[in-house]
């Protein structure tokens, strides 16, 4: 923009005038600062000098004891144990290299710890203490204490370290703690000073992280007198912190241990829920890992082994894994149809082995078909065609609504990491998320728990408990905090027609107890503990028409990651439901062969509160079961600090 020189003159004059004005203000302000400085440093100097002399009192934070975690019977799941560590103050040590050298001749120091400590010393000013070695045993500590005069700047300290006595059993439920990292601090707005204590431990994942608020406690403080170089001369007084609250979980450690062992090295998950109050008695996910490794700082090799394992030991499959529920979903479809009054239990559907839907053939798992099927038979023999037909009559939106009432597709609020909500698709959902219209074939797929339908094992257990009781049972993990009982999850009656529920339960009873039921092989013969269940086998691949013509490849001939997931849900005793269980074996093959036997073993273990008598099993299974019981007993993992296990 062109301007004439005259205009320029006036604007520049304004600018100069205001610049001088602003400069003047700045000078005045600076003068004010100088006056203030004079006031503080010259006029009041004596007074402050005096305060400074007195100001030899330093406040040190004291870490509170973390709340401990117990199972429903008071067995320890997470505890604090005294742990000894050796710290060094570089300033006091003088020749740091020599002191460390002397020390390492006395006790073994992990070279990795040493490396980290040296790096830390380089980063922080020399008067700050640095941890040289952690988790030292008593013998080594006493050696250091005796030789203290020869080791300037070295002090033994006692602290508390977290241990998980049940090792891998609770890795997924409770998670683990670890030292606060810079990343953790960046996550928290205005972090508490306590988090800045070096190597202070906080919950990293799982329950430990989710209930950090209650477990952490409040920091204490001690006032110490220090000399001019910051060395502590004496302790003046101390205010102990408030320990974190002890927590009691609903889980039964013995049962959990059994389930975890029973799942073994399969990639699998099992959830046991108490039908009466929603207590989660066991939430297992296999394979698992030892959380104690993480507390001490896991080695790169160990960590890589965990992350590269195809069975994903770090994932908590019970609440975080979602799977197509397969045929275990059929109860929902049937219940929706019954509640809508669309069918009666006696009405039959003809199953020729497939159903033609919108020009596409939807096959029944049984190629030859089931013939005439009524509701009871459809569950017992898991006929797919019956449910294709039913679902088309009911419609997907009503099915999904029923699924949500039964606890699928909604997020149950549990204090665990990454609790998944699963998915119960609706027409609107597909439109919004996939930008496509809902197809009639999608409904057929959903009716047998395939397609978009996803549920976690925990949700399937909740569903089964709700079917068994007719109440909206909600899962509960925390039994009590600091001895105060937490509200249970018995739930209100859901207002479903009792006759309909009874029809379904009878169907599930037939699955396990009728000679032609899919779960008959894994029945319980103890009369007071009869089990009702439903198998599910969910595909992780599409079977093309060409493949079907050539004969579907058997599961065992497929590579592991393409095999079907095996599922089984169940409740027992039939007359008076106590527990509901859901088991999924990833890529395990058929639900009735891979999942049902696990459900039966776990159910008996839960009902008997320990190893069940062999009488409960059918005669021909008893030898095999005895061998299995003996094997599991032998392989029971060693526990840490067994003697001090109980609270």
């Amino acid at each position, binding site marked *: 923009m062109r*301007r004439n020189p005259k205009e320029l003159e006036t604007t520049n004059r304004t600018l100069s005038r205001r610049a001088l004005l602003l400069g003047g203000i700045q000078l005045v302000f600076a003068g004010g600062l100088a006056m203030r400085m004079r006031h503080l*440093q010259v006029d009041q100097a004596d007074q402050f000098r005096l305060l400074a002399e007195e100001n030899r009192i330093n406040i040190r934070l004291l870490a509170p004891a973390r709340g401990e975690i117990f199972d429903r019977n008071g067995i320890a799941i997470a505890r604090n144990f005294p742990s000894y560590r050796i710290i060094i103050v570089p300033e006091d040590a003088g020749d740091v290299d020599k002191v460390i050298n002397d020390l390492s001749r006395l006790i073994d120091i992990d070279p990795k710890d040493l490396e980290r400590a040296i790096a830390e010393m380089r980063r922080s000013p020399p008067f700050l203490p640095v941890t040289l070695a952690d988790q030292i045993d008593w013998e080594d500590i006493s050696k250091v204490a005796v030789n203290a005069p020869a080791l300037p700047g070295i002090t033994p300290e006692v602290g508390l370290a977290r241990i998980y006595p049940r090792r891998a059993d609770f890795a997924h439920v409770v998670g683990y703690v670890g030292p606060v990292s810079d990343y953790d601090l960046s996550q928290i707005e205005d972090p508490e000073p306590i988090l800045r204590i070096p190597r202070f431990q906080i919950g990293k994942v799982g329950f430990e992280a989710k209930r950090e608020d209650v477990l952490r406690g409040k920091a204490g403080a001690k006032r110490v007198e220090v000399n001019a170089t910051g060395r502590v001369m004496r302790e003046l007084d101390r205010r102990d912190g408030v320990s974190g609250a002890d927590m009691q979980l609903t889980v039964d450690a013995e049962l959990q241990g059994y389930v975890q062992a029973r799942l073994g090295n399969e990639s699998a998950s099992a959830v046991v829920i108490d039908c009466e109050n929603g207590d989660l008695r066991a939430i297992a996910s296999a394979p698992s890992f030892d959380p104690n490794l993480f507390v001490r700082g896991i080695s790169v090799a160990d960590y890589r082994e965990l992350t590269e394992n195809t069975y994903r030991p770090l994932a908590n499959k019970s609440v975080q894994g979602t799977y197509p529920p397969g045929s275990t979903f059929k109860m929902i479809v049937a219940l929706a149809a019954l509640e809508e009054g669309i069918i009666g239990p006696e009405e039959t559907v003809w199953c020729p082995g497939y159903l033609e839907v919108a020009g596409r053939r939807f096959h029944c798992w049984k190629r030859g078909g089931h013939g005439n099927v009524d509701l009871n038979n459809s569950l017992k023999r898991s006929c797919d065609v019956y449910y294709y037909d039913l679902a088309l009559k009911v419609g997907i939106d009503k099915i999904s609504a029923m699924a949500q009432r039964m606890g699928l597709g909604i997020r149950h609020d549990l204090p665990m990491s990454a609790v998944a909500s699963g998915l119960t698709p609706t027409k609107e959902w597909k439109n919004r998320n996939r930008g496509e219209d809902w197809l009639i074939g999608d409904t057929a797929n959903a009716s047998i728990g395939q397609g978009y339908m996803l549920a976690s094992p925990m949700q399937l257990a909740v569903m089964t408990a709700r079917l068994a009781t007719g109440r909206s049972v909600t899962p509960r993990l925390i039994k009590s905090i600091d001895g105060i009982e937490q509200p249970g999850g018995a739930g209100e009656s859901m207002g479903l027609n009792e006759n309909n529920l009874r029809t379904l339960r009878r169907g599930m009873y037939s699955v396990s107890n009728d000679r032609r039921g899919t779960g008959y092989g894994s029945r319980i013969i103890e009369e007071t503990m009869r089990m009702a269940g439903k198998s599910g086998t969910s595909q992780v691949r599409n079977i093309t028409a060409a493949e079907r013509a050539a004969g579907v490849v058997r599961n065992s001939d497929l590579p592991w990651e393409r095999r079907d997931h095996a599922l089984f849900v169940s409740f027992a005793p039939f007359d008076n439901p106590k527990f509901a269980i859901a088991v999924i074996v990833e890529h395990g093959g058929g639900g009735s062969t891979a999942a049902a036997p696990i459900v039966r073993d776990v159910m008996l273990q839960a009902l008997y509160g320990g190893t069940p008598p062999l009488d409960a099993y059918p005669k021909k299974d008893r030898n095999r079961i005895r061998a299995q019981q003996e094997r599991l007993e032998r392989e029971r993992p060693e526990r840490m600090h067994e003697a001090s296990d109980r609270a």
Partner: protein
Amino acid sequence: MSYLEYNAKTTPAGLRKVLFLNWPLILLLVSVACVGFLMLYSVAGGSASPWVEPQVKRFGMGLFAMFFIAMVPIWFWRNMAVLAYMLSIALLLAVEFFGSVGMGAQRWIDLGFMRLQPSELTKITLVMLLAAYYDWLPRERTSRPMWVLLPVVLILLPTFMVLRQPDLGTSILLMAAGGGVMFLAGVHWAYFAAVIGAGVGLITAVFQGRGTSWQLLKDYQYRRIDTFLDPSTDPLGAGYHITQSKIALGSGGWSGRGFMQGTQSRLNFLPEKHTDFIFTTLAEEFGFVGGVSLLGIYMLIVIFCIAAALATKDRFSSLVIMGISLTFFLFFAVNMSMVMGLAPVVGVPLPLVSYGGSVMLVLLAAFGLVQSAHVHRPR
């Protein structure tokens, strides 16, 4: 095309430009930085690590950036102003976005060799943009409401983004520096009177709104104001810091305890003794003489800048130089007020002395602009 480019031929070219740099200003900047190195060395208990070494490296990089920017004609930077502003807004957005995804309350972007805080960058790009705006805007429109509203929006946009991070100190600096440039450009004084009036109203609202659903600040920010007004309310928290800071300062006396002899700042009474509270160490070890000397050097830098601004006839150049010197002034004025208990603790570092990469690099780059304006001034 501005007045300045007609005169481009009269400005020095090539390496001869080095001779025309404002060397006294550079000398002052280097001496302030050296004070910083000394203090960081002292705070670390007489050791080059962990703070002095990286700080020296960053200062070297910053000086290099300053020379580079100074060599490029000022009219190039004027043309870049809009782009630079947009870039810094985009970076602020990026921090905001990634912050919400999973990095928590984070204010920086990792460049590999250092962490850049976009909010620091914004302090300079905002000044550049406003200077370019008033260079472009015909004089008679300067005080028309619409043409006043636009720069106000340009100031408030980054201010609110920074406030959300939350970084109260930077947002105050942005508003004050932006307002300063508007004032220098000749916007009618009545607007400023109105804003100051509204400011008083806002402060009332902040206090009235406390505890209600529409409260304007975070709880901890209220606590900081509380403790500023009455340090005894939180003797172990922020009030403790102000008290300790004053004790350290006051015990320095007339000539201080001597280099590395300070006890108060050394005894871990103070947090951030290497960043925001570093002035306490200086004041304790070198006393009133040391503190006032640093203040004097700072003021000399500001005065040299004002002189440079008055010496150039180019409107953009003067506005940029004035804006940058004002920002610089705000940095040390707010920091010192805070340390001396005259202002709440808002987290503003002592420029070129406090440990920290972004502020140092951005300030030196800004002085690069001042140098460029000085070298390429119409003669």
